[in-house]
């Protein structure tokens, strides 16, 4: 009984802020107050109409897609190298590749800012992509690594004995069996990248900024429930991505060896 109460209390503590944001987003008046005084969709209309949010949404999609597309193969190779390669100081490599950035976001952001300025890349999204790759890579490596560890090397030997070249072994056996880890890694990459804020704040401008940065800029200038509406949309999208992927991952789990 006490345990159940504790769980409920903890759950409430974790979800109340989210609930508040969603509730406020339907507030008909232009103040961020709780509880809302009515029900209105005007702030959602505002989100869609605001050009800077549209631009930032496109930026977010581009940066996240590019970061995921780069981090997934790189992370997969890293995971394979960590498990299979003849590495000196494997544990050090693993610790570095597997731990999400331990450097504070502000410091990392500053670092990327100085580098990007030095390279004259501050006007382009490429520096954002590079930063996001660095930030999501540990999650990708970790996810794929689990699948690599579950992969019995004898299966690859079997494929080779059946006449498959090393590349064909990779294509027909290794890659399909890494699928659960690849999906999980992709999911992590997308969620982490979509929600990244601190580092991105340092290295984006009005043209390149991604959605979380645009939201922050908005909040600095205006305080109306538009931002709550956008936050709600964000929450729903993230939730949907995770939920769908989880369903799909469970499907993929069928193909896992027992």
């Amino acid at each position: 009984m006490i345990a159940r109460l504790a769980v409920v209390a903890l759950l409430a503590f974790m979800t109340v802020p989210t609930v508040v944001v969603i509730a406020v987003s339907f507030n008909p008046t232009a103040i961020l107050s709780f509880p809302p005084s009515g029900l209105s969709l005007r702030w959602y209309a505002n989100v869609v109409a605001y050009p800077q949010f549209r631009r930032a949404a496109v930026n977010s999609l581009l940066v996240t897609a590019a970061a995921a597309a780069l981090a997934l193969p790189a992370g997969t190779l890293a995971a394979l190298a960590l498990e299979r390669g003849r590495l000196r100081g494997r544990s050090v490599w693993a610790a570095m590749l597997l731990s999400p950035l331990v450097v504070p976001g502000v410091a990392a952001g500053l670092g990327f800012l100085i580098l990007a300025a030095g390279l004259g890349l501050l006007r382009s999204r490429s520096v954002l992509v590079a930063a996001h790759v660095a930030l999501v890579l540990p999650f990708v490596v970790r996810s794929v690594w689990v699948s690599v560890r579950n992969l019995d090397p004898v299966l690859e030997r079997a494929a080779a004995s059946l006449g498959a070249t090393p590349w064909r072994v990779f294509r027909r056996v290794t890659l399909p069996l890494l699928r659960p880890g690849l999906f999980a890694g992709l999911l992590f990459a997308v969620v982490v990248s979509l929600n990244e804020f601190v580092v991105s704040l340092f290295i984006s401008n009005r043209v390149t900024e991604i959605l979380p940065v645009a939201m922050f800029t908005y909040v600095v200038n205006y305080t109306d429930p538009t931002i709550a509406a956008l936050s709600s949309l964000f929450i729903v999208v993230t939730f949907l991505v995770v939920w769908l992927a989880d369903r799909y991952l469970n499907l993929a789990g069928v193909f896992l060896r027992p």
Partner: protein
Amino acid sequence: MTPTVVELRGCTRDYGPVRAVDALDLAVQEGECLALLGPSGCGKTTTLNLIAGFVPPTAGRILIDGADVTDRPPHLRGLGVVFQSYALFPHLSVRENVAFGLRERRLPAAEIERRVGDALELVRLERAGRQRPAELSGGMQQRVALARALVYRPRVLLLDEPLAALDRKLREGMRDELRAIQRSVGITTIFVTHDQAEALGLSDRIAVMHRGRIEQLGAPREIYERPATRFVADFIGASTVLRGRAVAADRVTVAGATLVVTSGRPLAVGADVELAIRPERVRLSTGPGDNVLEARIEGLVYQGAQTDMTARLSDGQRVLLSVREPAPAQLAAGQTVRMHLPPDAFMVLMGEPSSPR
């Protein structure tokens, strides 16, 4: 003379400081089924991996059909391998598993279809084609692995402990089936096992391995009836080895008594000899006589159909015997019994005598 298909010339394989295979020479003939028999760690699986190309030899050459394949990667060796764990691809159906090697050989779809059907028929799994390996029993998985390895008609079939993962009842059925398939396909086969019954029942020749070397190579009957060394004798179930001295071409003194030994080979008078004998050949004797020794029973294990006994001779040498139940007399530890060791039951071991246990 039948041609040699697989040949190992002075093959050595080290794992760090451990020498798994030690300057091994082996020639496998066309169509024969050869067993690599030995305890774990004797190098038999490493030998199989050398032939398959999964590990390169530290020294020595490997030939297939006279061609040096030492540096050829596994996918170009054209061998069929059945792994101990079967190593079926979990993400592919049975049919796709069997078709794997044919697809790599870029055969036309119709040809693949036909051959996969034939292979599944050979192992009596025509109906399981659509299933995933995980849905099959161990015995069925074994047969899929066999079909997958045979379907592209490899030059040689390699089997790693083919029956070890099956339970006992299945194992005997599968052994007969494996033998029938090997005979009907007529494929040169090398298989690894630690089970002497499996080796005796399945192979044309057995190579008994010990410490990375072949201790004895011969037909099953030869290995069983004339083990050449103490190790082979022990491994093949002749667990009593008596040390004695030859006093005539067919007489050996053991523990003060003289035994008649009809091994077919005259013994060198005055030489130290080792005589192996199987526990089931030793009989209890009611009175003194030829080839009868006295011994003290040290331990008894009742097994139902027989009782296994350990006894010690007056000079401390140990004899194992198994007495068919019901035993002629009540037996107990500490009791002194007379044992008859038939002259034709002895196997004279060759090579330098090993240290007594």
